């Protein structure tokens, strides 16, 4: 009895805590080339319906600095982009708040844009939650991501191996089937009198060199029948 009560209370607590926390998702890191445009995506998960008062806020903290500055805010259906700070005229809101997307695009990135961007989303009445950060790294030449080439090489080699083994077994299966059908057709065509010799002939055909000759002979017989 007590255990059932304990279990139900834990389950209810779990559900209750889930309905009051908002979870914000961004990428972990973004790599960009100098001078290119980079899209920083932000979305959230919430148990409530998307409210018309949903807000998105982006903060920026340069590498090595201690404090955040706000660079973007969306609230009450209006987007406010940075017009005084380091991103004036370079920030554009490309998200769709109705679909819980609060992404922004930063144009013409430079080395001074290296830093951490934090997205905070609030969906009233669901406002308790942790903001999520994405790190921007600006490169002159985008380096190869760790493990891409490694994974590609391993995958290709193993794939080729499996393919070769599969083709080998398929060829063996096809050859065996041809031998079987060949022996059956000879058995059925020439009747019972010459059964013994025909069976010996069919078994002798398992030799691959003779098999090709037998196969070509069968094809000639079939073409002769077609001509008739």
């Amino acid at each position, binding site marked *: 009895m007590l255990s059932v009560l304990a279990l139900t209370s834990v389950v209810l607590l779990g559900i209750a805590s889930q309905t009051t926390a908002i979870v914000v998702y961004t990428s972990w890191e973004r790599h960009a080339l100098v001078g290119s445009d980079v899209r920083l995506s932000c979305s959230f998960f919430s148990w409530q319906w998307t409210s018309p008062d949903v807000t998105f806020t982006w903060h920026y903290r340069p590498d090595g600095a201690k404090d955040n500055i706000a660079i973007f805010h969306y609230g009450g259906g209006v987007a406010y982009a940075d017009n005084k700070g380091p991103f004036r005229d370079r920030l554009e809101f490309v998200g769709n708040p109705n679909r819980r997307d609060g992404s922004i695009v930063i144009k013409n990135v430079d080395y001074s844009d290296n830093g951490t961007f934090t997205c905070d989303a609030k969906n009233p009445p669901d406002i308790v939650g942790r903001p999520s950060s994405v790190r921007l790294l600006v490169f002159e030449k985008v*380096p190869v991501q760790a493990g891409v080439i*490694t994974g590609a*090489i*391993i995958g290709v080699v193993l794939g080729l*191996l499996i393919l070769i083994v599969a083709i080998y077994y398929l060829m063996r299966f096809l050859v065996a089937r041809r031998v079987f059908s060949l022996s059956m057709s000879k058995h059925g065509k020439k009747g019972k009198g010459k059964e013994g010799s025909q069976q010996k002939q069919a078994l002798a055909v398992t030799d691959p060199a003779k098999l090709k000759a037998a196969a070509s002979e069968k094809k000639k017989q079939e073409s002769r029948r077609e001509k008739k």
Partner: protein
Amino acid sequence: MLVLLAAIFILHIACICVLLAATIHNAWWMTDTVSTDIWARWTLGASGNWNYTEIPNNYPTEYLQAVQASSVLACIFCILGLFVFVAQLYTLPKGKRFLFTGAFQLLAWLCIMIAASIYTDIFHKGENGWYGASFILAWIGVCLTLISCITYFVLRKKTA
């Protein structure tokens, strides 16, 4: 006969151990304060603790990833070869050679030789330091897999 079988089995297991140790342990190149490659770098901090850090960006990444890939493939082929050997012990007709197992060991030899050769030729030219345990084990792995491969190509299953 059983002694020979046991010896070949132990040789194959030794190959696997050597290859796994060379691939997993990050000790291809060492200095007094650094033990590095092929996955990450251990640096000795001022307080006497070893810290696990990333390999710096000035490494040629394509070659490093090629070494990573081929050493992992060598381990995979060697382990698969063990299972194939056990399977062939039961299914091979008497008097035949263990060709399939030998093929897997040949592939493993090829891969670990590629890995060790690329590493020796490309990395740490003219630097102060010495080659670590994993590097030596990789080259020992080259020899062991070659011996194992030749054994499988020569060995025949016992005729009754």
